[in-house]
């Protein structure tokens, strides 16, 4: 079985994003970029399934600028076998990403497509679900546990009311939540080896997908800033404040 792992290059999660003064977006010039944390978890899970003998090959895919190669090299250094870069300088929306991934899935025929649940830049939380719909396959979103049994997979999902378990026929689409695993760091020898692993470069046109946006972003602004309030000296002062608020 093959596992397809879409990975997105995003602003590093430790960086505080700054809104551009002209309202055109978030300033990404000279900002540290990394693999989306949920995608790292997806890569890790795919590697663990391969290590457990449940999968033979892991293919990492990224849709984005030439620099997304670095993200793919990271996936390869972690343990993915080969990579596909679908290169475009346009910001590609989840629906178009899902269409490209569907075309790749048709070529590669993976048993599982393992995505992150959410990209921490657009916070859309859509791509996996959209891909599953386009493929006509079941989905296990927000996974905190994945177990393959023969031709089906059990996925434990982090939901608002607790943990839900679903059983899906393969092929299936899975999106990862934070507690699925702790991603490994790539070792130096593996980083060196990753440079020799195959990385194909394609374009959205190769898959016949129109990536023009459906949502026009007319403005990006700062959220209302909260003013820091006051510091109280001790618990008594805090109690007085809370009482004044009508609490207790």
């Amino acid at each position: 079985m093959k596992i397809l792992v879409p990975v997105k290059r995003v602003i590093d999660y430790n960086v505080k994003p700054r809104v551009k003064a002209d309202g055109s977006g978030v300033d990404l010039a000279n900002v540290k970029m990394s693999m989306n944390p949920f995608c790292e978890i997806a890569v890790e899970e795919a590697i663990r399934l391969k290590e457990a003998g449940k999968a033979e090959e892991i293919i990492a895919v990224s849709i984005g600028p030439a620099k997304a190669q670095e993200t793919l090299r990271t996936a390869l250094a972690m343990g993915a076998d080969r990579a596909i870069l679908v290169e475009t300088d346009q910001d590609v929306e989840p629906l178009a990403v899902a269409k490209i991934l569907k075309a790749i899935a048709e070529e590669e025929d993976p048993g599982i497509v393992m995505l992150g649940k959410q990209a921490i830049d657009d916070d859309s939380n859509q791509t996996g679900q959209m891909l599953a719909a386009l493929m006509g396959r079941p989905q296990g979103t927000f996974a905190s546990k994945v177990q393959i049994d023969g031709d089906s997979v059990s996925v434990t999902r982090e939901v608002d009311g607790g943990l839900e378990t679903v059983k899906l026929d393969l092929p299936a689409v899975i999106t990862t939540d934070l507690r699925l695993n702790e991603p490994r760091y790539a070792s130096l020898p593996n980083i060196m080896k990753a440079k020799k692993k195959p990385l194909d470069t394609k374009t959205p046109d190769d898959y016949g997908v129109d990536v023009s946006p459906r949502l026009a972003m007319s403005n990006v602004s700062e959220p209302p800033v909260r003013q820091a309030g006051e510091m109280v000296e001790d618990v008594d002062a805090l109690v007085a404040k809370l009482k004044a608020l009508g609490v207790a």
Partner: protein
Amino acid sequence: MTALVIAEHNGGEIAEATLSTVTAAAQLGGDVHVLVAGGDDAGAAAGAAAQIAGVAKVLRAVDAAYAHQLPENVAPLIVSLADSYDAILAPATTTGKNVMPRVAALLDVMQVSDIIAIESPTTFKRPIYAGNAIATVESSDSKRVITVRTTAFEKAEATGGSASVDEVSGPTGDGNSEFVKLDAVESDRPELTGAGIIVSGGRALKDGETFEQYITPLADKLGAAIGASRAAVDAGYVPNDYQVGQTGKIVAPEVYIAIGISGAIQHLAGMKDSKTIVAINKDPDAPIFQVADIGLVADLFNAVPELTEKL
């Protein structure tokens, strides 16, 4: 212009998240219909939906296939009803987030996720980058598929309406997915996303027992819901559904009390719209103090029991 709201319910009751979604749908300017899809027990929920103020019509779809809101089964149903609607909305809960992108893709529409304001029937505001930026987006699609950040919209009145209830049916999926079980966290506490007061604990609470020992009595005293940072959840102090933040629950209570939480941007993303934020942290430089209305620099292991005692 008619909008369809996908109700969240437990058979008998309609979830409060649905009430906020009805308010958002009404702001689009046309009629609001509500779909209640579920198993045999969906009847009562449909009755409750018909009472919501401002709802013109309820569609009730009863089939065992819809019982657990499996997206593979519910999405085709919604798509089969979509012709009559200009907008389809659901709350941005784990259920809404699971089903709606599937609906959007089948309709070849780009979903607008997690809206916090409606500027026009096609223009919305939504947070991006963990709420560090607010984007205004205009949809050029033939229909809008929307998930709603419920804390950003007032709840519609649960009673006062008298909508008609129509029976509908539709496709039920290919049967390639199956619900196995739900391990629900049973609690008498107010639900996190609807609570007026939240007491939230972080990594500083050390372990599950300590968390319980320090946080629970304070929450009990205040009649508060309990939340947590990701660090506290990851370390297993509390279950996953306590997590507040960018990738957990979004809350906006009257009072949010953060105890032993540093205030990472991912945590702030989930609670910075709270009316009053109180922080107790032993580090005066903790970022949480930059958003707190009331801050106390103290060791929680002394301050929290004293606070609980004195309230």
